[in-house]
């Protein structure tokens, strides 16, 4: 295992959680009901917290006084390694919920693998994060059921969300070079993830989905993104970049 692969993988985890957290953060103050405004902000806070742990570790591995904020605020869209799924726009509550479900279910499998991995820091972050991720899985999958099996309108909106987001799930299971170097078993993640999602879709009265019949978008893990990411980063990074070298 090379240090470069470990850094890249850690940045992949950091960027994915930050970008999804940034997206979810836009719901704060605008949720469909007060209790859920609070709930999604909890999820957002967890994601930002996870991203900070990963960035801090990456910064330590990089050395030379590198900091979490340098990594989050001073890298460009071609350097970000987040999964494409995480940068997809919020859309309506159905899209946001489904995006969270797909990602949280993925995190649960990935972090469970990391628990037993060779890198003790990543294991420790995964262990701490898993407690949060299990809650995110429960919260978001409950909403998939409510919307899928709620009203005609909510069912249709869930179908639209599946159609919109499904092309971005395949990438999660396509190993990037750094994942291969770290022997992440993306096939095992894929099987467990698909089993869990299939069961959830059945419970939510949504039609079964297949990973093989859809052409999957890829590239995020290696820094090739959708057009959406540039705008997200421009907003996220603007204060730091307008006033370089300042403490905040």
């Amino acid at each position: 295992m090379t240090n470069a692969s470990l850094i890249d993988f850690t940045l992949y985890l950091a960027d994915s959680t930050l970008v999804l957290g940034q997206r979810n953060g836009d719901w704060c103050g605008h949720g469909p009901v007060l209790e859920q405004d609070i709930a999604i902000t909890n999820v957002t806070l967890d994601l930002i917290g996870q991203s900070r742990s990963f960035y801090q570790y990456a910064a330590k591995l990089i050395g030379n006084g590198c900091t979490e904020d340098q990594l989050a605020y001073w890298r460009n869209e071609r350097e970000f390694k987040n999964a494409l799924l995480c940068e997809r726009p919020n859309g309506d509550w159905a899209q946001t919920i489904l995006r969270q479900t797909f990602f949280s279910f993925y995190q649960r499998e990935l972090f469970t693998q990391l628990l037993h991995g060779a890198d003790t820091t990543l294991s420790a972050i995964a262990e701490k994060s898993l407690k949060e991720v299990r809650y995110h899985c429960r919260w978001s999958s409950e909403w998939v059921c409510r919307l899928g099996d709620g009203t005609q309108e909510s069912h249709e909106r869930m179908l639209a969300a599946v159609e919109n987001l499904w092309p971005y799930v395949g990438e999660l299971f396509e190993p990037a070079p750094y994942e291969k170097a770290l022997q992440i078993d993306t096939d095992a993640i894929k099987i467990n993830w698909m089993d869990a999602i299939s069961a959830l879709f059945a419970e939510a009265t949504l039609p079964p989905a297949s990973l093989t019949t859809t052409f999957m978008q890829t590239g995020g893990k290696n820094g090739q993104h959708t057009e959406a990411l540039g705008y997200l980063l421009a907003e996220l990074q603007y204060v730091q970049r307008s006033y370089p070298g300042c403490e905040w």
Partner: protein
Amino acid sequence: MEHHNLEKIFQDKIDQEIKIEPRDWMPDAYRKTNLRQISQHAHSEIVGMLPEGNWISRAPSLKRKAILLAKVQDEAGHGLYLYAAAETLGQSREQMIEDLHSGRAKYSSIFNYPTLTWADMGAIGWLVDGAAIMNQVMLTRTSYGPYARAMVRICKEESFHQRQGFEVLLVLSKGSDAQKAMCQDAINRWWWPALMMFGPRDGESTNSDMSMKWKIKRKSNDELRQQFVDMIAEQVKLLNMTLPDEKLRWNESKKHYDFGEINWDEFWQVVKGNGPCNKERLAARKKAWEEGRWVREAASAYAAKQKQKQQAA
């Protein structure tokens, strides 16, 4: 029991500092005043999420982003406690929200001012939350039990917010010239609106007399405003910044700071809906509520189906 007897028992309780609870008899006007005030307070927490929420996506560091998110989330939590307290007076949360959207219910005018720079996150915490705390500490002793208890919880978090806001400004005040200028600019813009938060001068405040007799309020608008000025005039020195008031100076004989006149025309204009962001704030709340309707409907439809299934099983 005869009406004047009930009223006497009620006022005796108030005078003896016994809290009024939801099932106790209370005069209609007491119920209405509390309902108006608590729901207005709840709405202020919810609308108040918007100006700060405006900077979550642009917070200048990950740590600040997390702190700001948690703060705005706290306000949602305060809104929840307060709506629950108001509901004990017999109005549903949905009705209160409809009253907000139709303009029948008000919220604090301070949230009709824009947040233009990052420093505004500090100024809001320090000045706006600082002014709110003055009022809220008093309200922990208000006569209506559910309101007083909600306030105890809220005050703990608010004083934390105020310290965080001050700390945001403290960092800026020690930073680059541009950061110092940003800090002073935010103080200049938020100072007068913060003073307006205490409401009209005592002589012009319509709801005050009964509120004092019933111990809903325990200090007058002007008393609280003076207390706030005295506190902030000292704290601003720690920032090496100034307050935008040429008349501000210590008055040794009164043992208070003298300060200049509030622009009451601006105050009433913003109350009437003509502030810089009144329309945007209300529009944002309505949009969230309208766009959330199908979500709420789906949740109730699903809950009903689950209940049916359980009953069938």
